[in-house]
């Protein structure tokens, strides 16, 4: 049973529950004291010792159900031995109707299949799966490999020969064997799928995420949008964990003589209490301008999502969305959940044809005061202004007021300046210009922006 628990721990790691050696020892001790008699109690004990949050409990619970739903290899082995007394009787009985002589020359697997001895078949399956190292399966692409490896180990070659031979001599029996073989194949495939679900989840997920992170945002297929959103949320959470935690200010540094003397005036200037110079740290102030016009509609969805999460990391964020004109969306993003807020914003200004010039005019007229020397201004957009006046001088004035101007452009550098792209003219007034087409680039860009305030 210990072996089974170990395999369960591995499966648990597969569903994203961190099982450290110490925790597995605890789980073992817990299981030793409650025993295996009551399945529900066993489930509770494992959930108590291994899962450390509600999400993990859910994941582990379903993993437990899946794991113990499959046939346990040790049990059928024991069961197989118990049945061994009966099976020799059973084997000659069933093929007896079909023809004794034929069955004698068949291989072990064929005999077993014809006998339809369920326990023996599942025992053989379990043995083959452990011999094939089925618990090492990681990727869905390995399914075929493991299935054929298992079938080989069970003696499919001999079975095929038997089938060929029987087709000549005893077509009726051959048909039955054929059907049984199909069943066997299905059973093997199911066992492999189950093993993949148990052990391969994490790796498959990682692989998929890796691909998704590097996929261009503008070319995400509709079915991947939900996954992409989850990924962006994950990025946002990571940013939040990294930057939102108020770190204790370090008390090292130079002695602040003035403050020390003042503080110790009561003791005649004898420095009982010391005061240290502190490094002044800017509070992050961010102004985000997000293009939501038709040309970048696919990408702006994710931009908005990221800005939404930025609102949770940084206190002082003001965000604006524009296509033909510009409006402030801070309040919408602050007060509503992400999906709703995005739909709302898209309703108000989305999908128009973009006019950077008049949007910048709008910004200067109404919101220029929000830009201070501590502000980082982020512009998210492709700078395609439909051949209208880009009014780059406004961006220049913004840049003069702000700490930095960062432009994130979903298009590749190659296309900047081609067609109606005004990127080269805007570029001169930006401190940082980045291409930002994939989730990974988006994460790096935002991480850099927040990090400059540390």
């Amino acid at each position: 049973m210990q072996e089974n628990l170990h395999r369960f721990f591995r499966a648990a790691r597969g569903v994203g529950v961190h099982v450290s050696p110490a925790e597995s020892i605890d789980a073992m001790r817990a299981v030793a004291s409650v025993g295996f008699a009551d399945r529900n109690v066993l489930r509770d004990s494992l959930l108590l010792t291994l899962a450390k949050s509600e999400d993990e409990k859910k994941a582990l619970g379903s993993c437990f159900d899946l794991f113990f739903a499959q046939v346990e290899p040790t049990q059928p082995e024991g069961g197989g031995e118990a049945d061994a007394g009966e099976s020799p009787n059973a084997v000659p009985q069933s093929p007896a109707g079909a023809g004794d002589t034929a069955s004698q020359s068949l291989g072990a697997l064929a005999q077993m299949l014809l006998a339809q001895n369920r326990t023996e078949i599942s025992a053989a399956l379990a043995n083959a799966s452990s011999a094939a190292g089925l618990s090492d399966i990681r990727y869905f692409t390995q399914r075929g490999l493991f299935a054929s490896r298992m079938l080989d180990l069970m003696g499919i070659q001999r079975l095929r020969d038997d089938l060929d031979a029987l087709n000549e001599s005893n077509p009726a029996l051959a048909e039955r064997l054929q059907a049984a073989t199909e069943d066997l194949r299905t059973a093997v495939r199911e066992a492999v799928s189950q093993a993949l679900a148990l052990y391969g989840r994490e790796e498959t997920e990682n692989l998929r995420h890796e691909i998704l992170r590097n996929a261009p945002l503008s070319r995400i297929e509709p079915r991947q949008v939900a996954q992409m959103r989850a990924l962006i949320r994950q990025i946002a959470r990571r940013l939040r964990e990294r930057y939102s935690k108020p770190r204790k200010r370090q008390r090292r540094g130079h002695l602040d003589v003035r403050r020390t003397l003042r503080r110790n005036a009561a003791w005649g200037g004898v420095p009982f209490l010391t005061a240290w110079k502190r490094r002044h740290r800017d509070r992050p102030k961010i102004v985000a301008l997000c293009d939501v016009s038709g040309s970048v509609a696919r990408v702006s969805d994710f931009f908005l999502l990221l800005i939404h999460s930025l609102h949770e990391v940084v206190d002082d964020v003001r965000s604006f969305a524009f296509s033909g004109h510009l409006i402030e969306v801070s309040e919408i993003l602050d007060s509503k959940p992400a999906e709703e807020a995005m739909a709302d914003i898209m309703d108000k200004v989305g999908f128009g044809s973009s006019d950077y010039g008049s949007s910048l005019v709008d910004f200067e007229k109404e919101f220029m005061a929000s830009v201070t020397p501590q502000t980082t201004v982020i512009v998210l957009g492709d700078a395609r202004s439909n051949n209208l006046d880009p009014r780059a001088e406004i961006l220049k004035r913004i840049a003069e007021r702000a700490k930095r101007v960062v432009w994130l452009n979903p298009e590749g550098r190659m296309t900047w300046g081609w067609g109606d792209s005004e990127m080269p003219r805007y570029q001169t007034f930006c401190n940082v210009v980045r291409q930002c087409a994939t989730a990974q680039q988006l994460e790096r860009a935002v991480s850099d922006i927040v990090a400059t305030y540390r």
Partner: protein
Amino acid sequence: MAERPSSHAIASIEAVESGLAAQGYIASRQIATAVYLSQAIEKPILVEGPAGVGKTELAKAIAAWRGLKMIRLQCYEGLDEAKALYEWKYAKQLLYTQILKDKLGEVLGGAQTLHAALDQLHGFGDVFFSKEFVEPRPLLQALLAPEGCVLLIDEIDKSDAEFESLLLEILSDFQVTIPELGTIAATSAPTVILTSNSERNLGDALKRRCLHLHIGFPEQKLEERIVESRVPGISQILRRQLVAFIHDIRTLDLKKQPSVSETIDWARVLVLLQASELGHEVVKDTLNVLLKYEADIEVALPQVTSFVAKTQRQNIFG
């Protein structure tokens, strides 16, 4: 790990359930299993869940059932070693040095040189940094309790991350190290319960050392039993209607869902008002016992009539 003789081991999970029930705490199977396991493998329990589902109550019930003293440490921001673990009794130390001044002079009088005096002084050891002068705070008290105790570390999520690290030694080995005195190990391992409202994420190191128990809102049957044990005078019809009504209320989108403690309060109020059944008027008048935000009451009010009607219907068929 060294096995400590536990004074009275718990026989089974059922024993936990019945023992807690005798104290008026109706535990679900998960809770009972957690309590049983925490004894069997000597691990603290970290209890998470929304406010008012009986996290703190669990510790009290365990203490009452096992006849142990309960030591409670309420966590808050800025809680530190001096308030949680131990402190030197500075005033007493100072007083003693003053009183013993003469005596010290006498003892050291024989010494000719400064070195000789120092040597003699060393011979007495750390007189003023001994157990006499330690003021034990909750954590140390729990370790020093001779026949064990229940240590409740309440709302651990409210404390700082540094405090968590302080707890690690106590939670894993039931011992603390005081620099001047050395390591103090528990004579008998205390039952440790930590509670958290998930206000912030606790560190992995802390979580690893604990059994993680999540108490959510109870199922209808269980909640009825809880009300039954806590509010003795309530009729069966009212109890069933009330619990069904609260389960309906929890399906609404509220700022703060009514939890078990609110259920019990409400049941008490209804018994006081001598209501025998749930009616629209009574419910509307007493809704503020159940819901703590004006906005929530506004959300719930329009639904009251249909929910009450539903519970009455169910009662006829059930």
